[in-house]
């Protein structure tokens, strides 16, 4: 929880050492923190590898639903990070766990999402239907009467570049049944900047489905605490001994606040110090949760403290 301060605190080298001594585990967001697109943030891999050498546990917590844990592990490896698949918690994996353990899903799921999501669902024993292109055919009457798989008991929405009116329609037909569960991977409105262009994110697709169905989805991704609970339950983490490092006040830092973790904002991504300070000055309790304990220009700046 951020204590009341006049300004958001910059993480100096001295404070770095203090902070690192006070935690056993560090959770990193990925986009805008350790990499941007396919480029590692300079110094990021040295920091992660150094943390591990110093006996800290390291985890990767991302709202991105387009990769499986293994695909993330491969990307991490390629970029020089010492990491394994079981340290990665993306929403493709976490949604599958959520459907299985929290929703206790007994049946199939209608999936608007990627092959990675399909893979993670199959790996926990849930059968998805609907992945891939789904072009329109016929007329309005046909759409309302589109054949439904009567084993479907949930609709899951993640990032899907094959999103179409037909998929929206199918999801709506399933969601007309009140006992059909409704889950979304995350509400991010844009994908991270890749090649300088912002692309619509899962949040837009989820909003379309929520609007048509006039229902609210259960959201798995940050800032929902489920992402942390997923890591914590598998690795026995003590929130007070955990640090969340992210670039977004409304997802990463909010998650940290919600779960009682220490929080560190890096400035290599979306949010700015000015935004953090504005949140701090505001009277709104929700905004107060989006104030980090510390900020740093880049996580590479922690290196001196680690190597001391």
């Amino acid at each position, binding site marked *: 929880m951020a204590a009341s301060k006049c300004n958001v605190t910059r993480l100096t080298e001295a404070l770095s050492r203090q902070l690192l001594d006070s935690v056993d585990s560090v959770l990193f967001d990925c986009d805008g923190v350790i990499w941007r697109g396919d480029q590692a943030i300079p110094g990021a891999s040295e920091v992660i590898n150094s943390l591990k050498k110093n006996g800290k546990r390291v985890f990767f917590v991302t709202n991105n639903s387009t990769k499986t844990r293994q695909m993330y592990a491969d990307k991490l490896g390629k970029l020089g990070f010492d990491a394994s698949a079981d340290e990665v918690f993306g929403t493709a994996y976490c949604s599958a766990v959520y459907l299985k353990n929290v929703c206790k899903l007994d049946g199939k799921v209608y999936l608007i999402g990627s092959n990675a999501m399909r893979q993670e669902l199959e790996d926990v024993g849930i059968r998805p239907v609907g992945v891939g292109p789904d072009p*329109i055919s016929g007329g*309005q*009457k046909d*759409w*309302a*009467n589109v054949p439904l798989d009567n084993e479907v008991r949930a609709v899951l929405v993640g990032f*899907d*570049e*094959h*999103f*179409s*009116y*037909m998929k*929206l*329609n199918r999801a*709506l*037909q399933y969601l*007309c049944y009140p006992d059909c569960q409704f889950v979304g991977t995350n509400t991010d*409105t*844009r994908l991270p900047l*890749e*090649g300088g*262009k*912002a*692309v*619509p*994110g899962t*949040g*837009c*697709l989820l*909003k*379309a*489905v*929520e*609007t*048509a*169905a*006039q229902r609210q989805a259960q959201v798995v991704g940050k800032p929902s605490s489920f992402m942390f609970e997923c890591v914590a339950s598998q690795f026995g983490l003590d929130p007070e001994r955990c640090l969340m490092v992210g670039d977004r006040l409304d997802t990463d830092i909010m998650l940290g606040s919600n779960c009682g973790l220490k929080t560190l904002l890096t400035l290599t991504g979306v949010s700015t110090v000015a935004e953090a300070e504005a949140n701090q000055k505001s009277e709104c309790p929700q905004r107060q949760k989006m104030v980090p304990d510390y900020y740093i220009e880049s996580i590479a700046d922690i290196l001196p403290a680690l190597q001391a």
Partner: protein
Amino acid sequence: MAGGGCVTLRGAQIRDLLDSKHDVLFDCDGVIWNGETAVTGAPEVVSLLKQRGKRVFFVTNNCTRPRENYVQKFSRLGFTDVAEEEIFSSAYCSAAYLRDVARLQGKVYVIGCGGVMKELRDAGVPVAEEEDAEPGASIYTCPLDPDVKAVLVGYDENFTFMKLAKACCYLRSPECLFLATDPDPWHPLTGGRVTPGSGSLTAALETASSRKATVIGKPSRFMFECISSQFGLDPARSLMIGDRLETDVLFGSNCGLTTVLTLTGVSTLQEALAYRDSQEPQQKHCAPDYVMESVADFLQALEE
């Protein structure tokens, strides 16, 4: 009228109401027809109103057909002498808005169906051509037309992620107008089924662009202003008849019209009463002045 009392119309009240009004605005789906079936008595009501010297207009959020198709549908369902000029759809009004209010200099990028495209062409509003997807095209490299100065989103059965991404790119320019044909989240089909509406696609684009669309259709006032600019309506002498509280009745309320809810469509009497008894002002505006089972209830008053 700021929120009505949901009075059930009976007998002499119906005649008195009609005597006090000169212009009658009807919603279509759920009021005068359901799918391809006219509501019993509706064609006669429309005819008799005109015979009694009233003006009749049709105000629909349904943007899937151009007006000439609506004329054919009216004829097919037994409504005689309904003229194109009396029909105001959100597609027609969106085109009118771009041409007359926005005075668009440039093209409009459209997420919409054939009905919208036709109305835009008929109004002389240039539409950005949808290029066939090149083999290497991706959501990261969509080609943009520099002449696009507005984005219009409506019901589109060919909606794709690519269209959403393109529209979002255009909307990054603050000068680019952002219009939506109507806010309906879903449309009812016969048999109690539903299909996603313009509102759901608009919501996706608003979320992507962090901008709010200017909505042309009910409950926004624009459709009334469009009719009024052509026919000179006096709100105090106009009656709005609809079946959907959050669009038709709220529209009537926003424009200062007397409102009637018919129970042959989407909304129920229970929902109307809930709005009437709500503490929130916005919700109260969704409560109709009057409720009737069906437009056929006008027949007895008209036939006298």
